[in-house]
């Protein structure tokens, strides 16, 4: 992640040759559907390809084959460098070659009507520093989200360029809590054809699986032409606005977006569902605890009422003139007294076995939730570190172009420092995640077993009480029968 110094940042979309080619695309695909190679993301493999790759590497491109960009940074997104798991968009990373051949090749694929375009050679000096170095990948990753928060806004339509080469560039701003993104908010500029390309890729990969892919807005030559020509009338503004809104809807459509998940998100799903379970359980245990509390209180009442009754019966027995009945009544008083003691003991069991157990569990579950929170905090630290590293890298890049070598060393030092911080944070996070997971599983197993054991213990105490009750009453029965 930290060693790709030889990378060439992808040039901005608004360069000459692109313009020309996009033009072609725009004009051509009037008649076509959006199936032809209009995306900027071809199915290049994730291996970064150097700008000097030969044209015969066309075969590594997808059938849509358009110009390729150098594949950079895809490995730096997300936390799992395992490239096999990266999704559609990594594949779709376009590698841009700055040779003429590829653009020509591209032209060929476009079709017979391509001739109308005015294709210029792709100059070699496309190397422009991009302010946002991770544009491509970011957009790709943007679209591949999961049920974490992902808000995308398409704003600021801007006309770039002039005449028939002009196009509208939209600012795509993403705000996300998805862990796979390095930044929480970022934005890039994209043009309509980029969106179409994205749609292509999503369709290709997922429509076969039966996913609903929301279609992109219609291309409209007339509308676009008006815009290009520069007519600042309301209809063109309206067109632009419509398109902007449609693009926003497209990127925010959760169906298509949700389908793109990567392994890491599965792990987060696990945590998410576990947290749900824990919260749910806490609820249920609280209710049980309340019921047990009520029992403890009522049992105490029963105790005292029985004691009082016992005394009252004793008094009655002392007044009773019939001696046998009098004796029986005093015996009854004793039975009731014994029962009071039994109730008392049972109340202890109620409390210590059951109520305290439940209170403990509820506290434990609270601790479990804290664990989850801790993990989130570590994650946030990681995010912040990555963000800072990003900024440092940008600063370095700026310095490179601004040609201030004296400050360069400082910048490099900064980068190194933050790179190691990021690694540390990543390690921390991995560790925390692992620990929390293990602990939770252990908790489940042990505590559930524990819970059941305690219930059994409580039932045994009840059983014991009932046994004693039987004995008490059986002792009294002859006394009652002896009344004459």
């Amino acid at each position: 992640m930290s060693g790709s110094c030889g990378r060439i940042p992808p040039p901005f979309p608004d360069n000459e040759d692109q313009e020309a080619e996009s033009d072609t695309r725009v004009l051509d695909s009037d008649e076509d559907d959006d199936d032809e190679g209009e995306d900027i993301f071809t199915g290049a493999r994730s291996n970064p390809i150097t700008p000097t790759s030969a044209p015969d590497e066309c075969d590594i491109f997808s059938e849509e084959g358009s110009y390729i960009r150098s594949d950079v940074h895809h490995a730096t997104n997300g936390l799992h460098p395992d490239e096999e798991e990266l999704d559609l968009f990594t594949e779709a990373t376009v590698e841009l070659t700055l040779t003429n051949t590829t653009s020509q090749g591209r032209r060929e694929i476009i079709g017979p009507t391509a001739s109308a375009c005015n294709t210029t050679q792709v100059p070699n000096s496309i190397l422009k520093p991009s302010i946002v170095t991770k544009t491509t990948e970011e957009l790709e990753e943007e679209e591949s989200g999961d049920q974490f928060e992902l808000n995308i806004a398409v704003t600021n339509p801007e006309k770039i360029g002039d005449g028939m080469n002009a196009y509208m560039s939209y600012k795509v701003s993403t705000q996300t809590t998805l862990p796979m993104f390095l930044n929480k908010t970022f934005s890039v500029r994209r043009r309509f054809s980029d969106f179409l390309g994205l749609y292509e890729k999503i369709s290709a990969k997922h429509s076969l699986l039966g996913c609903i892919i929301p279609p992109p807005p219609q291309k409209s030559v007339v509308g676009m032409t008006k815009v290009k020509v520069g007519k600042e009338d309301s209809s063109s503004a309206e067109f632009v606005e419509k398109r902007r809104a449609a693009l926003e809807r497209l990127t925010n459509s959760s169906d298509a977006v949700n389908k793109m998940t990567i392994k890491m998100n599965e792990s987060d799903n696990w945590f998410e569902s576990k947290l749900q379970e824990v919260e749910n359980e806490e609820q249920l245990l609280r209710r049980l605890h309340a019921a047990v509390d009520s029992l403890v209180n009522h049992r105490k009442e029963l105790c005292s009422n029985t004691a009082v009754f016992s005394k009252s019966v004793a008094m009655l027995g002392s007044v009773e003139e019939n001696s046998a009945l009098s004796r029986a009544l005093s015996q009854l008083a004793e039975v009731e007294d014994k029962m009071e003691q039994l109730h008392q003991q049972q109340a202890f069991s109620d409390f210590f076995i059951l109520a305290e157990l439940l209170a403990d569990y509820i506290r434990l579950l609270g601790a479990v939730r804290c664990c989850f929170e801790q993990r989130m905090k570590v994650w946030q630290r990681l995010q912040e570190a990555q963000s800072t590293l990003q900024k440092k890298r940008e600063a370095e890049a700026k310095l490179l172009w601004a040609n201030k070598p004296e400050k360069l060393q400082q910048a490099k030092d900064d980068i190194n420092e933050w790179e190691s911080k990021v690694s540390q944070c990543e390690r921390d996070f991995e560790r925390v995640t692992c620990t929390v997971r293990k602990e939770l599983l252990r908790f489940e197993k042990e505590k559930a077993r524990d819970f059941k054991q305690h219930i059994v213990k409580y039932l045994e105490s009840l059983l014991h009480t009932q046994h004693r009750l039987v004995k008490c009453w059986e002792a009294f029965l002859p006394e009652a029968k002896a009344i004459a």
Partner: protein
Amino acid sequence: MTGPYSCCSCIVFVHSVSVDLNNDASLVIDIPDALCERDKVKFTVHTKTTLSSFQKPEYSVQRQHEDFIWLHDTIVETEEYAGLIIPPAPPKPDFEGPREKMHKLGEGESSMTKEEYAKMKQELEAEYLAVFKKTVQVHEVFLQRLSSHPMFRKDRNFQIFLEYDQDLTVRRKNAKEMFGGFFKNMVKSADEVLISGVKEVDEFFEQEKNFLLDYSSKIKDATAKAEKMTRSHKNVADDYNHISGALNNIAADNNTAFKKHLEKCAEVFEKLRVSISKVEDRMASDQELKLTELLRYYTRDIQAAKDLLYRRARALADYENSNKALDKARLKGKDVAQAEENQKQCLQKFDKLSESGKKELTSFKARRVVAFRKNLIEMTELEIKHAKNSVSLLQGSIEVLKSN
């Protein structure tokens, strides 16, 4: 006496709280059936008789609680029966508890789950049944006391009560107008003071007086404490119901960390709910029915005995007054014959009351002892049965839980 009862589709069996009062086959009364229509309870009074004074050998009539009260009051007002312990009137059927619960049930229906609602409904029905049992029992015993007494069974109004196939409402109204409950009210006030103030010559009555006064206060106290105890017991049973329900929820819920380990426990916990809480509830109800009801009844009966003493004390006071009047008359030399007559009558009345009173009080003693014996035995046997039942259920549940 046992018999089936129906209450809005429930069948109830009742054990009488008093002794077996129907051992004289010449007049056998029971309440085999009762209907509850909102506030009013309609008892079916069934009579079987071999006595010629009755029109038919067997018949049934419908009677309301107010009819019983009317019968009681007319007997109390009857001068003839002054020397007898008049069986206490049955208390008014009190459905307040179940009615409250029903109200709560109706209000909370929307916020409860189906299971909770069904459970509460069950509880409500059980409580309703218990109240019903009690009230039928107490009305039946009242009639049986009358039928087993040599004097009361011959009472004209009693016969009307048993036989008259129409509504007694009209008759009731007339009676109220006639008597106005005057005497009854008189008896209630200051009887204790009067009784204790009287100078007693008769040893028997002296003892009885002391005993009854003392016993009366103690049994009242015992009744109140028994009621409190029973209520607590029922609360505990109720709590077990909720606990098992909550345990059941935990075991049955799929979205908890415990789910894997408590899967098989859901059934056990449901069974527990049935076993523990139901058994506790039955223990509480049976204790109430046998012991608390017994105490309640005898509190009333003791009061009836005290009323007899009061009437005798009044008769004694009348006699003493008549003596004084006679002396005065003799002194004055006026109305001597009248005063003599008066005195003779007072003495007669007093003697009569004393004689029958003695008999009554003696038989009351015996009756009380027998009733206590019967009920204490029955209660003990029931408690043993329930406790043993609980033991086996708990054992079963523990085994199942341990084996999982």
